């Protein structure tokens, strides 16, 4: 074989044989270009991100060390900070409402009172740039850009935070160390630390986080001092974040993201390879008579095989070169696209390593896929040259086919393992891909069979003829359905999942259920807030007291001990989080008792107190009915026993709790209240928020619209990657479609001309072509939608634990858009077919 590849004759023949089909072959080659382009762009991006993380490590946190706590720093904490030395900034942050009196808007925000020079590395990016200094001087507040825009506020607009009437000094764009992903629910509002008392928001029981941002002295001892103080920091229950830790986390996140995006690109590449393979299949089949003649003339099998192998390699190389050029072009645009999604600035830089890796992957994948159809060249008998109807007999077992198949599987699994660096994820991805491709192919085959056996007798002639073309030999309907269906599948799954999530939230908005929650209501404000709601004719659907506490021990073991014990599998967050608990006498209607008995009332002396746990948190804590727990309620320890387990329907917008106490156990503890009400519409909600927050500035409000916005925001961020994947696969599908149409052009031309000779008009020919492409698109749409519905139902049931929703509109849109796209691309690629002169058919007879 290698010797055959070295023969100049083989190269010459490969070149000459391609003469009549070079343009077509180049088009096939482009099938893999989009996948390659994506790999190159993503690889370059990955390297740029890693470099940015290295270069800007300290800017990722804005400080060397950040200590945080839910309690104000006391003398002990301050002593440790003093020993660390250097400079220090303090930040007090909590959730509250900002009001824009100019436009009457009110919204839940994350208030951050900052004193000191933070950030020490990097800068607050604001509009105008001077705003970062203005707010420190106490001239007003710095408001996150998105919120300000939402309420039509800009620099100079009036704003009210708690009792403090002030103005917006600027719009906030980026804070070193903050990832934008977390700011959707509560966007950030900065004010100077010394202005905080004017808001009168602190000290009213709000959930506050205290942070100290430190810049260590530039001496070598700083790191050592930090290391030696770590046990003390742990004792004080301070969370410690360092630039190194942040860098490691970000690096890991970036690597995961990069791996994910590479897999995304790989899907497009695989689809392109399937396109190339099917094109080679048709190309080789057209060439089989030539192969037979070559064999008659005495060409060895290896040489004839080498001729077509060379052509396939050339296809791969052309596709890779085109893809690399395209990738180099788009990688420039990526940093701008990601500007708002990354916590640091990024510069584009082309990576030759990434291009090299993409080339290896591209050549490997396209060649291993092309080998399958190429193998048939080996089995062409010279007899076929003299007997047109020569039948090679039934297919024999061909070991080479199995070998190539195994090679393809190995290359896919290998790439997935390389990208995910996890055996489970890698194999999972490869298996998922195989299932998706397999199901698509199966569904495609089924639909073609269905289309073929449907009684089409009543359809107009053009439709019957067009649909019959779908099962024309060499028509590659199966490949095209996979190519077009995969993109449809990805996009529709995304839309349906999004719709399911939002629908499950909207479903909560029925009848008399609450759809807005007012929290941080102080005991002395409770009556006032209820009265204010009454004045607005709004019902109090629910009112619950809230006591904040921490877990102290689980089944007799201290949580501090469990958290540091590596053999314990309890997630850290359930041990260390702050629990906001309530007490009541009965189950709420969003709850269902799963086991044990719910105790509604105890006397003040009861110990341990029987509490009811939410099922999920009980599972995380590894406790069952009868297990003992103890809580630290602001210094006071309360012993408890798990009395019952509840299932909670979280998607209802109402106060839901992990832990519910019986009446009589917590009344002595300092409590806040949360109220749930029902508003008819967004404008009523806005009016309610305005009225309540004006009278009680410390009360915060969250309504269903805000939750919906937040879910939308999160979903849309997650969707970026999936959209990208869908985009590349859709485009690859279009290129594969183009290739297929160009391949079948001569046959189609022949048929069109024959129809014209028999008296068919150009319009009839166009209608037949249109029917074929529309039919193809419709089948692809159906295949994609069916799979997407399956996937969305699975995601909804098993991942999001909600019932799937299949909005007719989204599905109908796909079923219209996909055929339309296919129709337009198909008709554009078939231009000239309907208007060719019928004389050609007689001419072709002579030739």
């Amino acid at each position, binding site marked *: 074989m290698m010797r055959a590849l070295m023969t100049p004759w083989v190269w010459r023949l490969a070149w000459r044989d391609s003469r009549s089909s070079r343009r077509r072959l180049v088009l096939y080659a482009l099938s893999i270009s989009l996948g390659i382009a994506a790999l190159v762009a993503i690889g370059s991006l990955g390297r740029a991100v890693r470099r940015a993380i290295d270069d800007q490590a300290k800017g990722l946190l804005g400080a060397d060390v950040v200590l945080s706590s839910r309690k104000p720093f006391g003398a002990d904490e301050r002593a440790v900070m003093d020993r660390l030395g250097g400079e220090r900034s303090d930040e007090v942050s909590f959730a509250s409402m900002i009001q824009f009196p100019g436009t009457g808007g009110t919204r839940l925000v994350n208030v951050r009172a900052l004193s000191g020079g933070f950030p020490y590395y990097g800068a607050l990016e604001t509009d105008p740039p001077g705003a970062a200094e203005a707010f420190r001087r106490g001239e007003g507040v710095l408001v996150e850009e998105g919120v300000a825009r939402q309420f039509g506020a800009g620099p100079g607009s009036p704003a009210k935070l708690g009792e403090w009437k002030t103005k917006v000094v600027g719009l906030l764009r980026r804070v070193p160390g903050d990832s934008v992903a977390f700011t959707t629910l509560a966007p950030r509002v900065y004010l100077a630390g010394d202005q905080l008392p004017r808001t009168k928001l602190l000290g009213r029981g709000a959930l506050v986080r205290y942070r100290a941002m430190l810049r260590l002295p530039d001496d070598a001892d700083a790191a050592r001092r930090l290391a030696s103080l770590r046990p003390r920091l742990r004792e004080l229950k301070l969370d410690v974040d360092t630039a190194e830790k942040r860098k490691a986390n970000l690096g890991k996140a970036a690597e995961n993201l990069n791996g994910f995006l590479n897999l995304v690109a790989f899907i497009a590449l695989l689809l392109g390879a399937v396109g190339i393979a099917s094109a080679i299949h048709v190309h080789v089949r057209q060439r089989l008579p030539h192969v037979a003649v070559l064999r008659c003339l005495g060409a060895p099998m290896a040489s004839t095989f080498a001729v077509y192998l060379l052509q396939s390699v050339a296809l791969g190389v052309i596709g890779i070169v085109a893809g690399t050029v395209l990738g180099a072009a788009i990688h420039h645009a990526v940093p701008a696209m990601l500007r708002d999604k990354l916590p640091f600035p990024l510069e584009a830089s082309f990576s030759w390593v990434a291009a090299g890796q993409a080339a290896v992957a591209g050549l490997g994948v396209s060649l291993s896929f092309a080998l399958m159809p190429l193998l048939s060249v080996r089995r062409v008998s010279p007899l076929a040259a003299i007997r047109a109807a020569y039948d090679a007999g039934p297919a024999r077992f061909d070991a080479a086919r199995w070998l190539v198949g195994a090679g393809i599987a190995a290359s896919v699994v290998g790439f997935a393992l390389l990208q995910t660096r996890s055996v489970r994820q890698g194999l999972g991805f490869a298996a998922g891909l195989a299932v998706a491709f397999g199901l698509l192919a199966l569904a495609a085959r089924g639909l073609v069979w269905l289309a073929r056996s449907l009684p089409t007798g009543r359809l107009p002639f053009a439709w019957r*003829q067009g649909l*019959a073309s779908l*099962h024309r030999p060499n028509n590659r309907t199966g490949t095209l359905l996979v190519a077009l269906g995969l993109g449809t599948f990805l996009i529709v799954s995304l839309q349906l999942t999004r719709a399911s999530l939002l629908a499950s939230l909207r479903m909560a908005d029925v009848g008399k259920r609450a759809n807005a929650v007012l929290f941080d209501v102080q005991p002395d404000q409770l009556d006032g807030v209820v009265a204010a709601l009454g004045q607005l004719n709004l019902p109090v659907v629910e009112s619950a007291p809230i006591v904040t506490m921490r877990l102290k021990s689980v089944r007799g073991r201290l949580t501090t001990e469990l958290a540091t014990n590596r053999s314990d599998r309890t997630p850290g967050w359930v041990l260390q989080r702050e629990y906001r608990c309530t007490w009541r006498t009965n189950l709420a209607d969003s709850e269902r008792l799963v086991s044990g008995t719910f105790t509604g009332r105890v006397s003040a002396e009861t110990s341990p107190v029987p509490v009811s746990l939410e099922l999920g948190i009980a599972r995380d804590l590894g406790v069952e009915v009868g297990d003992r727990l103890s809580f630290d309620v602001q210094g006071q320890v309360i012993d408890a026993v798990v009395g019952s387990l509840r299932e909670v329907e979280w998607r209802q917008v109402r106060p839901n709790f992990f832990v519910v106490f019986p009446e009589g156990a917590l009344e002595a503890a300092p409590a806040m209240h949360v109220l749930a009400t029902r508003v008819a519409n967004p404008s009523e909600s806005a009016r309610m928020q305005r009225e309540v927050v004006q009278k009680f500035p410390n009360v915060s409000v969250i309504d269903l619209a805000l939750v919906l916005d937040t879910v939308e925001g999160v979903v849309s961020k997650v969707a970026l990657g999936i959209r990208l994947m869908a985009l590349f696969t859709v485009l690859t599908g279009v290129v594969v479609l183009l290739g297929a149409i160009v391949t079948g052009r001569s046959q189609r031309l022949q048929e069109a001309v024959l129809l014209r000779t028999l*008296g068919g008009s150009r319009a009839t020919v166009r209608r037949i072509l249109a029917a074929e492409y529309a039919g193809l698109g419709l089948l692809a749409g159906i295949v994609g939608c069916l799979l997407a519905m399956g996937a969305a139902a699975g995601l909804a049931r098993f991942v999001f634990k909600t019932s799937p929703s299949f909005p007719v509109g989204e599905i109908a849109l796909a079923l219209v858009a996909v055929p339309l796209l296919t129709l337009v691309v198909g008709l554009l690629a078939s231009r000239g077919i309907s208007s060719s002169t019928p*004389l050609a*058919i007689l001419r072709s*007879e002579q030739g």
Partner: protein
Amino acid sequence: MEDTAVQPLLDVRDLSKEYRNAGHVLAVLRGVSVAVMPGETCAIVGPSGSGKTTLLGLAAGLDVPTSGSVRLAGHDLGALDEDQRAAVRNEHTGFVFQNFQLFPTLTALENVLVPLELRGGRSEPAVALELLAKVGLGERAHHYPVQLSGGEQQRVAIARAFVTRPRLLFADEPTGNLDGDTARRVADMIFDLNRDAGTALVLVTHDIDLAARCSQVVRLRNGQRVEP
């Protein structure tokens, strides 16, 4: 436009066709005239490159001449556009090709029905089945072209050509791709149908025997009609 017995069904007058290729003018047909009366049979013969197929194509309105005129069933083809010519073809003519030219995705029966369906009417399988039976393929109506031999494919093509009861059948080397016995049977079939249905016949052929069965023979050489 009713034609009477005295008017030819196909009237080709002084037909010329030139092709321009890279600055060269190639005259394929020069001043050829032919008249074919209803029910008449006409063979076009001549060596390769003499313009036979071009003449057939122009007579059927598959292409437009450089000069001269073609009247087919009373229609002046020069005055019609492509789609109008197609309609005339569909209404008055049938075609049989050397390479059969069946639609590979349609069964024998469906292939035969195509010309009827192009007229936009409801398909009439009965007529098509009857014709298929006539050409000896009644049992194979639901077979695809690949499942038929060359002779059988050509018989399907003949059935297709006659399904619209055309007044004129154009045949381009109808037996060219068939072996001796099959060729004879196919030729018989064409002439039988010609006789039974009164269909006029214009065929291009290299086969002297076939040409001899025609009432009129048009000989071409270098694009010009020559006397025998």
